[in-house]
């Protein structure tokens, strides 16, 4: 493989040089400047080090972050990798280093997927045999029409005061929790057939991803039936950006009976927390009826198409995000090359950031 001698895994001693590279390539605000985040995502994820580097004689020139994950793949558990971050120094682009990183990090015969790649990378992934042109849907629920009308056209920050987020928000069958207990595992076994290809939502993964996140305070809502069994959960991140407050549904898994109540509960929380609008990015055709019942509308609709997804600064071009997957064997391609059967949410990537 070309460039093999320049590619290696990140080690603890790399931190100073790694941070310099991140500041040069991404800027000082990028989340990779935070060592707690890097350690959490790439050192404490069940793999010794899942961060791959381009090292040109001691100078770091690129990075690919990967995360080991367990997928529910048509009913069976499949060890896979999620590619979360790829960047090559602008001075060294288009000379094959990105492809070399992608191929170097790939474990033999393992499924790989990732989200949020650039337009340029769409064709690169496609040429490497990935399916790379799958877009996530975006559904929105407007709670403050005045603010939302403003953001459709006005590029200046909104100046307004905000109430603090609602706390301890129990209502009916829905409760706010701080972590996922072991009963989540039984719930997941009961509901997983509804989502043919998706991350396995075992409590160990969910707690690592949401409850133990070093930087983002997620709001976790759980719905239980009268017997105390979990019937669904929803993870929300409240983002304050550019003067606006947005409720981002990051993850949502529910039995049919609990879908609407969970969405309505999250909506009530957002209303009590002074949120301007809620959005939810996902692939496939999941939860569509419940979303509509709970007041969500597709961003394809005329009233919603001009609501930006990225703030600070406001980006009026990007309307959604994408994902890509690589199925390494004929058997996996036959069973899994159906984008509508994949359930991917913003929780799958490391792009769930407040900027």
């Amino acid at each position, binding site marked *: 493989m070309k460039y093999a001698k*320049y590619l290696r895994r990140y080690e603890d001693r790399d931190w100073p040089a790694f941070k310099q590279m991140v500041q040069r390539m991404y800027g000082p605000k990028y989340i990779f400047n935070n060592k707690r985040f890097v350690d959490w995502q790439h050192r404490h994820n069940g793999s010794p080090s899942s961060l791959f580097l381009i090292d040109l004689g001691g100078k770091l020139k690129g990075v690919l972050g990967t995360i080991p994950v367990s997928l529910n793949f048509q009913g069976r558990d499949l060890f896979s990798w999620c590619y979360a971050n790829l960047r090559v120094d602008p001075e060294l682009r*288009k000379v*094959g280093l990105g*492809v070399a990183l992608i191929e170097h990090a790939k474990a033999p015969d393992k499924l790989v997927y990732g989200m949020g790649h650039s337009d340029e990378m769409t064709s690169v992934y496609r*040429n490497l045999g990935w399916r790379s042109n799958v877009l996530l849907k975006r559904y929105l629920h407007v709670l403050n029409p005045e603010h939302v009308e403003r953001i459709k056209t006005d590029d200046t920050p909104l100046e307004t005061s905000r109430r603090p987020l609602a706390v301890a928000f129990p209502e009916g069958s829905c409760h706010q929790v701080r972590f996922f207990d072991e009963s989540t595992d039984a719930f997941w076994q009961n509901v997983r057939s509804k989502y043919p290809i998706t991350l396995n939502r075992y409590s160990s993964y969910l707690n690592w991803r949401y409850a133990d996140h070093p930087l983002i305070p997620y709001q976790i809502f759980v719905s239980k039936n009268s017997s105390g069994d979990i019937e669904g959960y929803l993870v929300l991140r409240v983002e304050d950006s550019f003067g606006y407050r947005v409720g981002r549904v990051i993850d949502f898994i529910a039995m049919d009976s609990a879908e609407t109540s969970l969405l309505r509960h999250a909506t009530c929380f957002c209303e009590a927390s002074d949120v301007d609008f809620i959005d939810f990015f996902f692939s496939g055709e999941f939860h569509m009826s419940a979303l509509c019942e709970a007041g969500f509308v597709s961003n394809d609709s005329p009233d919603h198409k001009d609501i930006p997804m990225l703030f600070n600064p406001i980006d009026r071009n990007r309307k959604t995000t994408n994902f890509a997957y690589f199925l390494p064997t004929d058997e996996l391609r036959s069973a899994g090359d159906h984008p509508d059967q994949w359930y991917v949410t913003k929780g799958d990537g490391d792009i769930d950031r407040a900027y």
Partner: protein
Amino acid sequence: MNERLRNVMATTFQVPAESINENSSAENLERWDSFGFLQLITSLEDEFGVNFDETELLRMTSYKTIQSILEDKGI
């Protein structure tokens, strides 16, 4: 050598050979991306019977630099 180089680049990047010239580079050939570059290298190594080392690869961002490196190899 120049005609063979032009033909390899044209085939790799799926453009007419006449459109490849001394100004052709990663900046103005649409299909020249990370994957296209590695295809180009494989085709050049096959066509000219050479191997490129990593330091050469990092410099090969245009027709001119490729031409120069091939000349250095006695092509």
